[in-house]
């Protein structure tokens, strides 16, 4: 028997207790997903100015006019989506490759200074984002003169410390014997990495790919800082611009928000297992 007592004399008691618990869980779930429900439902409304209208939490009609309104807002709306896609995809591929490589090295290869270097990397995760924000901006914009380029959007997150940590954490489960045996057979490190380690690390790579893609797709401040023309902006920055330009257009704003969020929902529902797994892989023994 576990934490909960399941030995009720009366079946109805068990039934009532579980019913109450389920009711609580459902209520809390409703409260958490309400904003998303509200966003999607409202996005099908007509693109009229708010004020005259009142919002309802039940769908009254389904119209795609608001989506059209959002896409017509700027000639670059499609570029926002494309830019987000490009940035997220490149960041994802580069993180998966380089973080796996580095995580493997930190976890399984003995080289001088590896412990110290890894400690430095871990320690850097404690530094608040605000500290690096200003100098990073100066570096990218003033020194490298990269404002408004894909390089500026992508370069700082080519490989993140968190991902390296994730991989190292995961690889500690790969037995050292496998690696030693392959070395005995005369397998060189690159061969070992590509033919033995990579196939064994599919899970962590999938987790990392998904989380990195999502992080990159959803990020707002950095693209907001380093882009200054509409055609280079990402969907999140575009959505913010749209909001400030159309403060009273309720339904189109919800349509925009839905457009920015829906790709991630699709990703989440199709690869849910990896999302949920990713949370625990990263948290074990923080």
């Amino acid at each position: 028997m576990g934490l909960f007592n399941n030995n009720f004399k009366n079946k109805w008691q068990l039934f009532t207790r579980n019913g109450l618990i389920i009711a609580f869980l459902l209520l809390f779930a409703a409260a958490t997903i309400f904003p998303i429900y509200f966003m999607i439902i409202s996005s099908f409304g007509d693109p009229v100015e708010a004020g005259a209208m009142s919002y309802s939490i039940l769908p009254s009609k389904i119209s795609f006019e608001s989506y059209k309104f959002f896409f017509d807002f700027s000639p670059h709306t499609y570029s926002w989506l494309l830019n987000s896609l490009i940035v997220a995809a490149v960041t994802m591929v580069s993180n998966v490759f380089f973080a796996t490589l580095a995580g493997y090295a930190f976890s399984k290869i003995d080289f001088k200074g590896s412990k110290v270097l890894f400690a430095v990397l871990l320690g850097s995760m404690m530094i608040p984002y605000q500290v690096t924000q200003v100098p990073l901006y100066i570096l990218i914009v003033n020194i490298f003169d990269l404002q408004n380029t894909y390089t500026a959007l992508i370069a700082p997150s080519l490989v993140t410390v968190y991902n390296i940590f994730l991989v190292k954490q995961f690889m500690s489960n790969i037995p050292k014997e496998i690696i030693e045996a392959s070395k005995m057979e005369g397998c060189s490190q690159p061969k070992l990495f590509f033919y033995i380690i990579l196939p064994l690390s599919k899970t962590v790579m999938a987790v990392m790919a998904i989380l990195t893609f999502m992080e990159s797709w959803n990020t707002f401040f950095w693209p907001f800082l380093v882009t200054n023309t509409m055609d280079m902006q990402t969907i999140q920055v575009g959505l913010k611009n749209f909001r400030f330009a159309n403060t009273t257009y309720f339904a189109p704003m919800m349509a925009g928000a839905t457009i920015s969020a829906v790709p991630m929902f699709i990703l989440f529902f199709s690869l849910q297992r990896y999302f949920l797994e990713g949370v625990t892989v990263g948290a074990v023994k923080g």
Partner: protein
Amino acid sequence: MNQTLPTKRRLKIKGDSVWGYAFIATALVVFSLFTAYPVISAFIISLQEYRPLGSTYVGLENFKESFASELFWKAIKNTAVYTILTVPVNIFLAFIVSIFILPFKKRTQTVFKAVYYLPAVASGVALAVVWLWIFDPLQSGIFNQLISLFGISNQNWLGSSSTSMFSLVLMSWLSSHGTSIIIFVAALLGIDKSYYEAADIDGANFFQKLWFIVIPFLKPTTLFLLVTGVIGSFQVFQNAYLMTGGGPDHATTMVGLLIFNNAFTYFEFGQAAAQSLVLALIIAIISFIQFKFFGNDVEY
């Protein structure tokens, strides 16, 4: 033969070493360029009056100015209030939900976990846009409709300095707790059944089991969530930036937002760098205290 083998092995280890450096090379370059250099640079900039062409050294002037500024203290106070109101409550909510998820089958657990996690997948900007309308100050706003059921009159949620901070806190309470819930559930499932069985033999009830078994076992997990939660919360400012702009009357100006504004609205890079270092110091001290007070018997 006997002599060649060790040499060969040594060579191989040496070869490994080279591959080790090769494998971390890219990561190291990215880290040095985009994290290590900026951190060092932040210290230098904080001592300067920054100008793109030739900055002037001003010593600790930026720090002095920050500490003399009322707004800086107010921002720290706001951040602290926000953290105290959100982090413990959010952890508590996640804990309750995780306990209640536990008696159900694995599939049911997964469904609930997924539902609670879902809002974390949506972008912060999208959620901010939606919440702005939920907080609509007109009669027709969702929250105003809701509280009118209880006979409370219209609130100007984000627009009034008395409710704006509370509105951001409320938003945090009702946002995704999926990550914490998943971590808690994983920890709960890690508790060996024999503890409960022993407690059952002693005739312990549900609350006694909760108090004497579950809570001590979850201490490391809770500490982890507390420390990461506080660190995260001290840096939070996206919602304040997008929803209130720090207003009204700076009631929601967080340290993160103040630094952002100093840097990218007023281009006072020196000031911003100084304040960011103070923020880093505060975070470090708080994390240290948390480990000191709550982490006595926690092993990492």
